[in-house]
């Protein structure tokens, strides 16, 4: 398949899929560790839309088979969880930390772990409020951010089977999810609670080796102990005794995974003409936090994508066309409505760097210390645990690194961190970099993009464009 680089609709992929070589499709099988021969997952966005994720019909997708595989891999996670459960696997719902406890969980055989937090985008992809409605019935009403969909999913169990264990990080976490997790336990789910601690601005001695975030040795010892408690809970649930060797193996696995995603971000977000669209990158970034419930397949999926990116860069190919390179926009907060990213691209922009809450999951984990200490250090790198000013500093560094020309904050109404972070990040970006900033809350807008949001992005892109022209 050597077609031109372009974007395809879900229906276009439907007819184009027939051209995909059988050898490629045959590689796209997951759950080989649980079901002999594995299970096929390479279906088109149209087919996944027929299973309920209607937003896919409004999106356009990169034309490479590797991108199709990426989409299929993500949207087949639900199937994997149900099939694995039927095959006797333990299902672990990880909640809140976004990247660290998965390292511990995947040290264990016979289980699949997923981040329940990711259900947060399900109402927008499904263009249905049924998860939100189920959450409302239990008390999680619209004052909370979309993460309340997790509670709805725990009630309906139509996105994943009943978890054998929920691992819940609390303490220095957002109020919305803390409240949701408590209601999850109220449903009778087995929950192991662990305390997350916030780094202290200014520091108390040490800094994390890769994120440069200050922490005290006492806090580190405490977090390490909390993670040891998570390991004990996993041992009880799986019936497997965890050795240090198993943990070291998982740290190495996640380091390999994080390296691929980190390098991919550098390749794509650093290019004047990015070799991949922002939506595919959005999906790829989230694989870094938990392998998308399939450690075996996540590597060929991401390596294939990275190969495409490198080949396109070498050949000067890009889905972004035009005489002038696209306007470079740094994106803050994962957009609840994924269609906003292609909207930005249709208006002449591209994503040039992101803070989707998961940047700590792109950092390496030390392999020259004990695994629990390495993961505990990484906990302090979580920007949501840091002060808003520390997060703003990190974002400003990123923006400089990726040479962004504007910053877009797609906020989340009701999220306990947004009222603080929005203002501080926006002011810091304007004061230190003099860049235009657009900040808005993403509304629930099934079937179409909100006209108000469209107008605001359009006006913002005009400002960024005029600024570039003035500087030329």
């Amino acid at each position, binding site marked *: 398949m050597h077609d031109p680089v372009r974007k395809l609709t879900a229906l276009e992929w439907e007819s184009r899929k027939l051209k995909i070589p059988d050898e490629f499709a045959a590689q796209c099988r997951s759950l080989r560790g649980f079901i002999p021969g594995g299970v096929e997952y390479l279906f088109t966005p149209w087919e996944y839309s027929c299973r309920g994720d209607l937003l896919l019909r409004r999106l356009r997708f990169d034309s490479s088979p590797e991108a199709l595989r990426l989409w299929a891999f993500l949207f087949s996670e639900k199937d994997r969880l149900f099939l694995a459960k039927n095959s006797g696997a333990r299902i672990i719902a990880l909640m809140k930390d976004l990247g660290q406890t998965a390292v511990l969980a995947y040290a264990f055989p016979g289980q699949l772990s997923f981040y329940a937090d990711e259900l947060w985008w399900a109402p927008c992809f499904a263009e249905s409020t049924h998860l939100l409605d189920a959450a409302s*019935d*239990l*008390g*999680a*009403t619209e*004052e*909370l951010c979309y993460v309340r969909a997790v509670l709805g999913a725990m009630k309906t169990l139509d996105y994943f089977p009943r978890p054998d264990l929920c691992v*819940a990080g*609390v*303490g*220095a*976490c*957002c*109020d*919305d999810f*803390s*409240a*949701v*997790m*408590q*209601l999850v*336990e*109220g449903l009778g789910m087995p*929950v192991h*609670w*662990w*305390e997350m*601690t*916030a780094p*202290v*601005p200014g520091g*108390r001695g040490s800094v994390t080796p890769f994120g440069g975030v200050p922490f*005290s040795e*006492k*806090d580190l010892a*405490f977090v390490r*102990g*909390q993670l040891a*408690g998570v390991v004990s809970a996993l041992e009880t649930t799986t019936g497997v005794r965890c050795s240090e060797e198993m943990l070291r193996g998982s740290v190495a696995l996640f380091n390999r995974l994080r390296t691929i995603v980190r390098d991919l971000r550098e390749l794509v977000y650093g290019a004047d003409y990015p070799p991949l669209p922002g939506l595919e990158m959005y999906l790829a970034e989230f694989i870094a936090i938990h392998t998308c419930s399939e450690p075996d397949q996540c590597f060929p999926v991401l390596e294939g994508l990275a190969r495409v990116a490198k080949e396109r860069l070498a050949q000067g190919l890009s889905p972004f066309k035009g005489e002038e390179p696209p306007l470079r926009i740094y994106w803050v907060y994962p957009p609840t409505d994924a269609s906003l990213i292609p909207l930005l691209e249709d208006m002449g922009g591209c994503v040039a760097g992101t803070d989707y809450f998961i940047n700590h999951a792109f950092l390496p984990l030390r392999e020259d210390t004990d695994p629990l200490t390495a993961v505990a250090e990484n906990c302090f790198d979580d920007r949501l645990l840091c*002060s*808003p*000013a520390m997060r703003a500093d990190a974002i400003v560094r990123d923006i400089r690194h990726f040479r962004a020309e504007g910053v877009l904050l797609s906020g989340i*109404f*009701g999220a*306990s*961190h*947004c*009222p*603080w*972070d*929005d*203002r*501080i990040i926006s002011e810091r970006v304007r004061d230190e970099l003099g860049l235009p900033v657009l900040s808005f809350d993403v509304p629930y807008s099934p079937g179409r993009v909100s006209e108000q949001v469209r107008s605001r992005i359009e006006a913002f892109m005009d400002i960024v464009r005029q600024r570039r022209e003035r500087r030329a």
Partner: protein
Amino acid sequence: MGLGLQPWRGVVAGPERAGEALVRPDLCPFVKSVLGGIVTCSEGFGSVDAWAGMYTCDMTRRLFQELERLSGKKVFLLQFPATRTAESAGWFCDSVENLALEVVKAGFSSGYDPVAALAWETERLRGAAVLRAAALSFRVPPLILQELFLGFFAGNTFPREVALESRTPGVRIAVTGSVMARGDDVVPGTLAELGAGYLPLGCTGLSGLPSTVPADGSIRELALASFNDARCIRNRPNHGVLEWIAGQVVDSGCHGLVLKTLSFCDLWHTEKERFRRMPFPVLVLSSDLSPGERGRSSVRLQAFVETLEARNA
């Protein structure tokens, strides 16, 4: 007091609008009002030399993380654990000890005196017992009771005795939920107008009163007592907190419970359905601190009390 400082707790509603100038409006009104008090140096906030920023919820965490920049005053941060384990208790004690060291290092204190600390804590426990007994007698008018509690928490006024009225109210209402700061008196005010009894159960009520007697005046023992006394809705898990509240309502002979939550206070607001399943009438009042909300809350409270009066007639 062990460090030779004069503690003051900022449970006072400052000018919310002034706080709103610095953050988005979808923030807890109490946090916004504290922020307003800090930036305008009003309502006692201006007299603070340094802050011990012990955060519980995410909104207070971010407030205290930014407070030093906003106020120009030194802030000593402290995380109150949500989990209720021995490890969390130990870490909290370590953190409080570390805070005390930092206070001394920063020059705000010349050192810690465990005898002075224990004397103050003993007085506080005695005052708490007096206040608890007064509240459970239902013979203190609601607004006076509210003032006594706020005096206890904000001004460190520990009552030796409380004057009791001879008449007891017909309907007794327990109130729990988000912090009730000075200036937020719509519930006790309305109950007073209606002649109903008032039992404050929130963190500026009975659940905030200390009850654990520390073994000595060491920082560690005092911190541990504070940890063990906490009945915060943010505790994880928090079943024990809900059971305690239900037990207080039943044991005190209250006829109903008001769950008063502030807008965007997720930790209380999301518990409303669990509260509604409790075996007594429950009214959920969600409001901010604006004058417009007072009327609405007052009317709803009035209807609730009348319903209970009819039921108990």
